[in-house]
């Protein structure tokens, strides 16, 4: 009898933390450790399934930060600590963590894209000796949608951090307003060989941010992106996430930009 890859398992919900008016971080009890950058198919019986990346990994738990935007993600927000949530996975390749060691890491993330890179930052926050430097460049739509405020305050102490919002308002305490691409030039890159740029966000943001870094002298193979696609299975059968000869669920979601550029939807 072979394994049914479409059958989810129940995981207990330990806690739920509100991040913004539309996003919560769900902490689940977990008996295994996924690779940073992998994702799970989150499954709610009678509602449906959706692919969600991991926003935190700890001993015996993992975090998923979910925006209530579709019908499954909205239903997830009705769950309470102690409830079961069903998962399949982890799926995908994850970030090349070993290849980042000893290098200058630059992370540019937009909106929900901050979620999958949060474990990278936490990893190097706890092991700063493993890299030479880290710059963080975050963009959000408006001040109310800034995620992981407390984490960012902590990260700021160790890493150069730039946060910008597309639209400012009176409560915005930061000084930066505008698209993330406008702030790429503020990142100092002393050595274009010994570095990695990680870009995660909406497709259009990743494209223009990557182009901006390339304009400033970064080689496309030094840029890493994490792609998002519609998926029904996560195991290379349903076909929704196919781009070119690649399946985002199998060959991604993490791609080097020189490869990602060749994947034309």
């Amino acid at each position, binding site marked *: 009898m*072979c*394994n*049914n*890859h*479409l*059958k*989810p398992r*129940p995981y207990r919900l330990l806690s739920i933390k509100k991040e913004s008016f539309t996003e919560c971080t769900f902490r689940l009890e977990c008996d295994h450790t996924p690779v940073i950058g992998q994702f799970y198919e989150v499954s*709610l*019986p*009678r*509602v*449906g*399934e*959706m692919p969600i990346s991991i926003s935190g990994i700890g001993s015996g738990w993992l975090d998923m930060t979910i*925006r209530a*935007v*579709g*019908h*499954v*993600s909205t239903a997830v927000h009705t769950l309470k600590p102690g409830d*079961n949530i*069903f998962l399949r996975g982890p799926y995908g390749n994850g970030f090349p963590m070993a290849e980042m060691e000893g290098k200058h890491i630059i992370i540019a993330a937009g909106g929900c894209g901050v979620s999958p890179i949060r474990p990278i930052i936490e990893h190097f926050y706890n092991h700063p000796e493993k890299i030479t430097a880290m710059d963080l460049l975050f963009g959000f739509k408006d001040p109310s949608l800034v995620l992981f405020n407390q984490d960012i305050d902590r990260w700021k102490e160790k890493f150069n951090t730039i946060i910008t919002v597309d639209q400012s308002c009176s409560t915005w305490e930061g000084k930066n307003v505008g698209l993330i691409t406008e702030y790429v030039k503020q990142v100092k890159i002393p050595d274009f060989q010994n570095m990695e740029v990680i870009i995660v966000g*909406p*497709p259009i943001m990743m494209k223009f941010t990557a182009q901006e870094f390339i304009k400033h002298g970064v080689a496309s193979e030094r840029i890493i992106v994490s792609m*998002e*696609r*519609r998926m*029904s*299975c996560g*195991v*290379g*059968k*349903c*076909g*929704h996430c*196919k781009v*070119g*000869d690649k*399946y985002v*669920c*199998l060959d991604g979601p993490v791609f080097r930009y020189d490869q990602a550029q060749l994947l*034309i*939807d």
Partner: protein
Amino acid sequence: MGKSLSHNEFNVLLGALAKDYNIYAPARFEKQGRFSDTDIIRYRQVSQVEEIVWQAKSTYSPKEVVMPVTQTLFYFTQTEYREPETDTRPCLVFLRACDINGFASLDKIYLENGGTEDIYYKRLREKVKFILIECHTSFDNCFCVSMGANTTDNYSMAVRFGEENIQLELKDEQLAGYLDNIGQGNDFKPQFIQENKIKVNVPSVAEMPDWIYNDQMWKQYDHRCIACGRCNTTCVTCSCYTALDVLYDDNCQVGERRRVWASCHIDGFTDMAGGHGFRKENGARMRFKVFHKIYDFNKRFGKHMCVGCGRCDDNCPEYISYSNCINILNDRLKEGEKASV
């Protein structure tokens, strides 16, 4: 081993086989066609040779035997996921060489891609034995020869239907017992179509150049294609699906998760929660499908997905020819090469 059977003898054989097998063949559904007073030919279980439509190409492919249009993955009661029971009877499927080769494309996705096997597909697929229907003639829009899918030796039995009698070749020893006392022995071997009216030149490029993705040639499909997805649903090799959960009207605590055929031509195929989506223009969807069938799949699996059955062209309500599109693509690539020299 070869045999010649009368129609009556063939019905005796089908009767004997039906005791142990579900027998699927293309059959006529009268007045269910796309235009008034036209029929549709699609697969269903049969018990008599008179039910089998061997004189024409089926409108729909035999893939629904292993890939039902709608398939239940789980039944839900409260928070329990329960797998449905599967019919364990083995199947015999009457089909043509192109379709047998089409199953090899489906197998690549469902049994190989990503190193995992889809258990629902596998359970149905491993029960199937193929009975090859020899093609007397190449039908409209067929281009199996160009795709190298006109021949096969992957069958348990091969059949040449005729008005007078039926010739068959038996390869599968498990079926030999059913033929012991029926028909006259001979040395029949099936013949394969060696030439189609439609010829397709599949581009033999290692890498598609960037410019072809946005070439003018795709623009004509922006408006001609109405994104109905009929080319995908009739294709023997299209394998995409969407999963969805349904609740039963009388008790919303109970329901099921189903998968249904999905189509890269139809609106919403790439839409994600939050509004992001890809390939808004129908021409881009045509390009995506054509590249998958004759380029991307081959790059990944070392064989072309398309088998040249031509059902997409048979059934397009806008009379778009996919085979012609491949030839246009091949010409454009050659012109592009010249321009770049």
